[in-house]
């Protein structure tokens, strides 16, 4: 019986929120039993979320572990009308916020090292993106992750971060425009440097 329930419940729990939104998820009486396998199925994505919060692998693993403990201990708070992944993201963020508010210098907890972030991204990273992301506050990084990485709509992303969809939209426009400007400026600098090098070699 348990076995059969798992068969139809897990795909719904595993689906990204954008696919799962609006669909019936778990209808069994003891649906909370599905949270564990659901969370396990989401682990890589949850870990990425923690990575983007903390900015380095070991700290993110520790944060995720603490948040998972909270989620399992308080799984009765999970409501079946909410996508499990979105709930889990919100729980990780809430865990981090609670810890940061207790820290001596909460502002310092926002910044992440470019090198660590680059290591997380790996070989596919480009330096402009790394610098840009590392310079953003956590909430903005997560906004980008949820919308561009997870494909959440603004309302879902807003629910995770506990801000309105309008706020998400407005900030995303500002952040996207700033990043585009920055990339253009970097390209201009490169072109100028190249032209100067050619001028120098012609003079010499």
């Amino acid at each position, binding site marked *: 019986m*348990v*076995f059969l329930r*798992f*068969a139809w419940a*897990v*795909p719904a729990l*595993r689906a990204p929120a954008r696919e799962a939104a609006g669909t019936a998820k778990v209808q069994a009486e003891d649906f909370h*039993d599905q949270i*564990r*396998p659901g969370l*396990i*199925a989401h*682990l*890589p*994505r949850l*870990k*990425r979320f923690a*990575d*983007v919060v903390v900015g380095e*692998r*070991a700290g993110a*693993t520790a944060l995720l*572990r603490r948040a*998972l403990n909270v989620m*399992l201990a308080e799984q009765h708070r999970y409501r079946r009308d909410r996508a499990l992944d979105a709930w889990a993201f919100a729980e990780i963020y809430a865990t981090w916020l609670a810890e940061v508010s207790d820290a001596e210098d909460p502002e310092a907890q926002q910044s992440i*090292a*470019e*090198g*660590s972030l*680059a*290591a*997380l*991204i*790996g*070989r*596919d*990273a*480009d*330096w*402009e*993106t*790394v610098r840009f*992301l590392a310079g953003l506050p956590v909430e903005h990084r997560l906004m*980008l*992750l949820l*919308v*561009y*990485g997870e494909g959440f709509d603004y309302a879902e992303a807003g629910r995770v971060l506990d801000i309105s969809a309008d706020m998400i*939209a407005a900030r*995303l*426009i500002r952040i*996207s*425009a700033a*990043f*585009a*400007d920055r*990339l*253009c400026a970097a390209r201009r600098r490169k072109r100028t440097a190249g032209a100067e090098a050619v001028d120098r070699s012609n003079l010499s």
Partner: protein
Amino acid sequence: MTELSDELLVAYVDGRLARKQSSAVEKVLEQDDVLAKRVKALKDAHNRLEAAFDAILAGEELEVGGPEPERAGVFVPWAAAAKTALAGIGLAAAFALMVLGYGWPLSVEDFTRTSFGSGDPEYTGSIEPSWQETAARAQGLLSRETLEVGLESQSNLDLVALELGKAIGPSLKIPALDTQGYRFERGQLLRAGDQPLAQLLYLGRSGGPLALFARKGGDGEAPTFRRYGGVGSVAWSEDGISYLLAGEGDEPALMTLAKAIRSLPQPGAPRDASDGARP
């Protein structure tokens, strides 16, 4: 130029406009180069962010998905099980374990261990290491012997030859490169892991220092040029010693210097008067 706000353009790039609105924007873009460039820049920004997040996820899937499949708590078999309608007695048993609460703790432990246990990931290519990483790696080159020899002794070529020859081997070449335009400044003993590593430093008329590193090992490898960021290098080995010449020079300049060093006679061998390198 048509006035289209960043708000609309970002929504267009993010695919959040209705089909009719998208078509209208596309028509405007066909006729307006400035706006088309702006959209291109926004798309580039969007793509880079997506690529960065995808890369992090790929790394985590590798990390989290790596544990041995025979462990009951590992999640990968569960995903496969869902896809194959959970057929098989072994999977049923594993699921029962998970429901009973055994699988989950195992999963978390495995996940934590593999993630903490990851090594220092390489990130080369376009990614520059932080100054902290560069400095920490440089610190790893220093040994006790590095500081036990006084600076004065480090600039005496004969003393350096004696000291480094003892650590690296009698066939170590300590070239003077005055005829190539580089003045010997000092030599010191570093370490590469638990192996001694000799470093000879030279200065040209301008620019940064030129360094010749040497350590035991290697057998007759031909000189090969490689660039690490702004530093060019030529590596080769001869007579059981591996050399690395590193500096700001370009490939031809460094290869010429390497050739000059390679052409030097072995220490103790009869010297050829035509060799301009070793005094």
